[in-house]
């Protein structure tokens, strides 16, 4: 069994065991088994870092075997510089989320923990799959645990949110399925993604494929104007669900652009890049403004996610090394930062049971340690140099300015809006005198919460101060991708 298979199946097997054997009466041992499962699943991804070869864009750790011979589908796994970090990121965030949900979840603990473990394995599968159908199976299967997470452990309006999440994203992915079957036939009976990369395609076909991919991936990212599901879902989802959704699930969409849209339909990608850039800029500027007026902390961070993911898609579609790399770095950074922001909100929500900004004020007086973490993550969210948030945004803006000054200028306004909505929220929630009895009675974070936030804080700072390991891994793959996208596939 290869390393990637281990990374995918270890958490899934732990999840299934928990589903089968876990009882609420033994919640304590269920939590520990879940934690052991998550940690083991993270540990098995570490040899990937040891063994990863820099300087090649070829797929590494490849595993290939027949799966469904009738359709020539292979169990084909592999990572390159683009997907590599997401495997580790997913496993890492999973550990953090399981620790973070330790006390917040008291009912059906085994199902909750199992959902997250299985979800984590499925998402690693999405990043590692090199077979179109295998990708689709993992991509779609993630909907089931997430639907249950939102619907069972969510807030008051959870049912609406769960359905909106499921049906909205399913609509997009069904078109992806049609596109995949089309490519299967076009390529003479192959679901191999790398074969599809080399497949010559006519201009109309490329456009149709591009928009079918767009339907699936733009909804997932989410890009403006199909982002409306995200705030609703974030508000209702439990803290852990929000963190995983923002940290990893949104990246599945952005990753799809890099793995499918751009290399399979390069001419259409160039033709429609203006549209993608336009939508990204709207997301960055307009959604940034929308975030400014939110009363609900989770909604604010949700809109901030949409704006940050706008940076990612902007970086992809300006077709420069620094832009695409910047986009990927931004994806990883946003994984840490948005996950951390949602966990911070979760810490407050567990104590006061309100997400309204207005219910708080002066939290720093009663929770100084926690406020320090929150400040760090808020700074990272608005892109302060020295934090993870800065690197990606700076690279994307640099790339955008090179491509077109005004585009860069518009993108750069996001730094102002980002600072505005994040810091204003920080000021209203944490600073000032103690606002009410609830805040007065707050107790500072315990060692468990300290651990989760510290793990993320280390990641955010490390990536901000020394991003080289992250960019080194992706350089060759990104350069190769761009070379591939620059060549026309029309015949």
């Amino acid at each position: 069994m290869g390393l990637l298979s281990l990374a995918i199946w270890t958490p899934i097997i732990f999840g299934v065991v928990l589903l089968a054997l876990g009882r609420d009466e033994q919640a304590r041992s269920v939590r520990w088994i879940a934690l052991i499962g998550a940690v083991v699943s993270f540990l098995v991804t570490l040899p990937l870092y040891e063994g990863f070869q820099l300087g090649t864009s070829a797929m590494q750790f490849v595993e290939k075997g027949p799966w469904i011979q009738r359709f020539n589908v292979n169990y084909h796994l592999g990572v390159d510089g683009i997907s590599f970090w997401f495997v580790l990121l997913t496993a890492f965030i999973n550990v953090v989320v399981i620790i973070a949900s330790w006390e917040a979840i008291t009912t059906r603990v085994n199902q909750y923990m199992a959902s997250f473990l299985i979800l984590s394995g499925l998402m690693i599968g999405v990043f590692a799959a090199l077979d179109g159908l295998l990708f689709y199976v993992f991509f779609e299967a993630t909907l089931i645990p997430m639907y249950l997470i939102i619907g069972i452990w969510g807030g008051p309006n959870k049912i609406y949110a769960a359905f909106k999440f499921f049906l909205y994203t399913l609509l997009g992915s069904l078109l992806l399925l049609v596109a995949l079957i089309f490519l299967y036939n076009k390529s003479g009976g192959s679901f191999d993604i790398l074969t599809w990369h080399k497949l010559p395609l006519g201009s109309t076909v490329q456009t149709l494929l591009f928009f079918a991919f767009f339907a699936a991936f733009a909804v997932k990212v989410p890009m403006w104007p199909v982002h409306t599901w995200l705030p609703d879902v974030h508000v209702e989802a439990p803290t852990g669900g929000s963190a995983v959704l923002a940290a990893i699930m949104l990246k599945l969409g952005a990753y799809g652009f890099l793995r499918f849209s751009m290399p399979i339909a390069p001419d259409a990608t160039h033709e429609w890049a203006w549209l993608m850039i336009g939508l990204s800029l709207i997301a960055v500027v307009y959604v940034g403004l929308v975030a400014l007026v939110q009363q609900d902390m989770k909604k604010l961070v949700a809109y901030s996610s949409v704006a940050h993911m706008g940076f990612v898609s902007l970086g992809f579609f300006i077709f420069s090394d620094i832009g695409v790399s910047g986009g990927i770095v931004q994806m990883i950074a946003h994984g840490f930062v948005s996950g951390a922001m949602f966990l911070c909100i979760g810490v407050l929500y567990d104590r006061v049971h309100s997400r309204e900004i207005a219910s708080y004020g002066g939290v720093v007086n009663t929770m100084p340690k926690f406020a320090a973490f929150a400040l760090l993550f808020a700074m990272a969210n608005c892109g302060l140099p020295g934090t993870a948030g800065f690197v990606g945004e700076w690279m994307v803006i640099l790339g955008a300015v090179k491509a077109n000054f005004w585009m860069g200028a518009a993108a750069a306004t996001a730094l102002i809006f980002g600072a505005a909505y994040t810091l204003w929220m920080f000021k209203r929630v944490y600073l000032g005198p103690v606002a009410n009895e609830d805040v007065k009675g707050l107790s500072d974070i315990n060692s468990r919460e300290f651990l989760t936030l510290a793990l993320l804080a280390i990641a955010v700072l490390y990536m901000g101060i020394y991003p080289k390991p992250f960019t080194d891994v992706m350089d060759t793959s990104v350069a190769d991708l761009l070379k591939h996208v620059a060549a026309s596939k029309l015949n």
Partner: protein
Amino acid sequence: MIDKLSWITVYPEIVLLIMACVIALVDLGVKTPHRTVTHVLTLLTLAVVAVMEASYALGGQTFYGFGNMVVSDPMGGWLKCFATVSLMITLVYGRPYAADRDMLRGGEFFTLSLFALLGIFVMISGHNFLVLYMGLELLTLSSYALVALRRDNATATEAAMKYFVLGALASGFLLYGLSMLYGATGSLDLNEVFNAIASRQVKHQVLVFGLVFIVSGLAFKLGAVPFHMWLPDVYQGAPTAITLLIGGAPQLAAFAICIRLLVEGLLPLAIDWQQMLALMAIGSLLIGNLAAIAQSNLKRMLAFSTISQMGFLLLGLLSGVVNGNQINAESAYSAAMFYVITYVLTTLGAFGIIMLLARAGHESEEITDLAGLNQRSPLYAGVMAIAMFSLAGLPPLVGFYAKLAVLQPLISSQQTSYLLLALFAVMMSLVGAFYYLRVVKVMYFDAPHAHNAQPISAPADARVVLAINGALILLLGIAPGGLMTLCTQSISSIVNSLGS
């Protein structure tokens, strides 16, 4: 004419017939209210028959018997094997349910089931218009009686009446169409009909006229729009055990008779019947999915869901011949076969849950009766959720591959109309996802009702079978390759021997 080889083709049928009579006689001496002896004897018979059919199918050979009146081929072998197994599962789920409802006063439940299965066998192995028709009648007559088994229950009796009247009409349609074709081609044998039509000596109008009636008759049996009216009423009205009896194994037979008649007999007319099937598929997908949204009764919802699933099945049957070219035939018909087998497997799970949740005096057939099932029994909720996600076509469950297999030949036909049909089907499965998800929502997100709070008691055998049933839906989703290959091999032996 009747040589030794002929008998080989019908050994399982003979065993079934003899045992059905024996069980009817033995049952006279059985006095226990749960009829354990009859039940075990029936299951043993079925197990023997299933093994026989599987060994025929594994042999992979095609025998014709009794002057080409019946055929024993891999497709028939597998379908009969699966039909037998699904009847076994139905009986295991259904016995406690039937006992609670006074349906086991006599042994008819078992005997009629065996005769229905015999009808299914004849439908699957018939290679002659009259044999096929006889099989169909044996199945439907047994089914009418089974639906009416609770004769003092008003809804069941009403359902039986509707089923009988409409079913008889459909049989009439089919028989009339077959007689037209007999008149035109001068033969009842499928191969001879095939060759007569392929020779283009027969008047086309007459053939198409007969074809319309045949297709209508088949559509009645499948439950495709616009011949679907009976299905919701019968599914809802019949006792759940019987609903599963007529909604499970007979679907395999309906698929087989479609292949025998439309493909083995009438493939030269494909261009005509494919259009009819296309319209029925669109109607079934549309009405089945939209009407299912409005249902609050779970059995009725599943009935409409069946209609929409039959729409998908028809999509598989109609994409075999493109522009007179049979290149797609193997992938399309094998996709349809895969679809119907996995559909039956999933239906067994869903109705099994409904039956096991029912108690004496309480039917548990409203969707709200499932509220909070996850808190009452995670196993049942899990199996039902797997069944629902599979019917919705979500990976990694087997329903996804069934839909994928059906869509692939449609898209590979490179015809715009077929591509649009595929897109339409895909959009309709989004609508479908909504009502399947609603069942999951009720089970997982809602709290149990007070009147449903007591623990669920189900016999151990039913529980074990249910767990296996759910696991199969999931495992076949993770490794669907074997069943797909089996379907492809079965269908290719038919497609390769067409007209010979």
